């Protein structure tokens, strides 16, 4: 329907000319279709859960989406090690040296998987619930694994990475007045324009609710 798209464009041109003829002052308004703001889509896939995925998610996804790994042709483990070290030393990834072998193994293993299985969306069998469940204990464990690097142990956005991000990691202690659905959406889908990735590939829907229930305790 490219032809159709062109048809619409032609129609627009006619509409602009017509408006201009009817009322010259309308011309500028008619031309001012350009969006003030664009909203970028969230990445369609994240890292698949496997040993090391939580560390890879915490560090790699700060700067780029998981597709960067899944589009790669098979590389040797040595090449992956070179890539991870380049991310640390050239681009400033805050990954500690002790985690590098884990991430290299994870990326090397992911790279052997055919992307067709990769690209399948993880299905959440748990139906969405409107309130977070009452299990902040599990949520705390998950928070310490996935969130603490950026949001910090008390959720103030002051984790080891949090303040060096542009924009800085969110202060979760200031989210008390945000409705659950807004926070769930950010955890599930990430926040465009920030380092906050989508977690729906790594966390099940009930785990996402558990994280939220723990985040709620931070602002108390």
């Amino acid at each position, binding site marked *: *329907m*490219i032809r*159709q*798209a062109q048809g619409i464009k032609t129609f627009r041109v006619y509409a602009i000319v017509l408006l201009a003829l009817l009322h010259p002052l309308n011309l500028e308004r008619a031309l001012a279709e*350009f*969006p*003030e*703001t*664009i*909203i*970028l*889509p*969230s*990445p*369609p896939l994240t890292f698949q859960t496997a040993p090391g995925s939580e560390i890879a998610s915490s560090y790699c996804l*700060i*700067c*780029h*989406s998981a*597709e*960067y790994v*899944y*589009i*790669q*042709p*098979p*590389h040797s483990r040595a*090449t992956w090690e070179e*890539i991870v070290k380049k991310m640390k030393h*050239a*681009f*400033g*990834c*805050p990954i500690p040296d002790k985690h590098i072998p884990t991430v290299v193994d994870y990326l090397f293993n992911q790279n052997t998987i055919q*992307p*067709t299985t990769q*690209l399948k969306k993880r299905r959440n069998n748990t139906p969405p619930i409107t309130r977070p469940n009452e299990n902040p204990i599990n949520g705390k464990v998950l928070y310490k694994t996935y969130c603490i690097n950026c949001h910090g142990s008390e959720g103030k956005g002051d984790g080891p*990475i949090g303040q*060096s*991000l*542009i924009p800085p990691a969110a202060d979760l202690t200031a989210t008390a007045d945000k409705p659950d659905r807004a926070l769930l959406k950010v955890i599930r889908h990430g926040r*465009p*324009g*920030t*380092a906050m990735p989508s977690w729906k590939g790594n966390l099940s829907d009930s785990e996402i609710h558990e994280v939220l229930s723990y985040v709620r305790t931070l602002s108390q």
Partner: protein
Amino acid sequence: MENKQIPNHVNDSNALTRRGFLKAGIMLGGSAIFGTRIGSAETPSAITLPFDRGRRPLIAFPQKRPLMVMTTRPPQLETPFHVFNESIFTPNDAFFVRWHLANIPTHIDLNEFRLTIRGQVKTKLTLSLDTLKNDFEPVEMAAVCQCGGNSRGFFEPRVPGGQWGHGAMGNAKWTGVRLKDLLEKAGVKDDAVQVRFDGLDKAVADVTPDFRKSLNVEEVLRQEVMVAYAMNGEPLPYLNGYPLRLVIPGWYASYWIKALNDIEVLNAIDQDFWMKQAYRLPADPCGCIEPGQKLRATVPINKMTVRSFITNVQDNATVKSGHPVTLKGIAFDQGYGIDQVLFSINGGKQWQQSTLGEDYGNFSFRPWEARFTPIAGTTYHLQCLAINRIGESQRWNARWNPSGYLRNVIETVSVKAV
């Protein structure tokens, strides 16, 4: 400003069977169709490039039709190849996208936006978009913008990096002002060596090197280098650099800084990461090494190699025998202009002249076409070979370098006549 399109001399839809197009690898839940059918029930979900890990979902980003998504954040979007057969100028909503850093501009207030020219100049300039448009002579030029890693996915052995097919390129009519005029107004000091260009995109972590690129002063004072505020007669899409983009015809796209807001004249060679360490080529004239060989001296990536493509027939397509088939394609180089495009139907054993189409300028895609009459049961290995006006031609054997740059080997499209 009208987009001129290649005249459709021949309606070749009869010569190429639909089935031929169906093999293009455009998947629709198991079946395949040719082209992106926006808004129809048959919207394809992905295009699979002919190399390992080549599946690319088709997703519409803001101001874009569904394009092949290589990565979402930062966005890297490839133009589906059939677009190059539809018009000699690549539509803005289909033009490829490649950002390096994730914090890209998604909102720009033109009341606040300023382009600064500073450094080794007599007068620092701070220009609004209106000042730029009103105080300087507008110029227009057709030019190809091509990623240095275009076609990287076809490198053998494969190399790390963005795995592009052939669609990380586009041809547009750029409108803007001469960079030379801006620099003359600011007054470049005698000790100027390079000029560094920076845009509004920012890294996520403040320790990541900011993406900015530098060029020698004599290079940027060329007549055709411009600061563009429009492509194909419209404001640049956000994802292609709204509101201003450096256009440096003939050079690879990494220098075409998007959302350009800072021009700094330097009195020494730029030592930044993106010049000194990234986007480097082997220093020998070929820009290549043998796979596995150690990379020694390197130079910054620079001007484009000469290339050509057949655009209206896809690999593994079927053509109808007994009727003349018109092959259509495009050719381009770094700005000497295309002198001739040869084509072969037998994998390069014999070559014939093609007919060049309208000349939109030395930096533009140059359309060409050729005819042959297939005989039933024969498989044809179709090739095209562009030669520019200083006699440079495409390569017969693919060059290799560890970053996957400069591909310009003669490409082959095999078709079977039925």
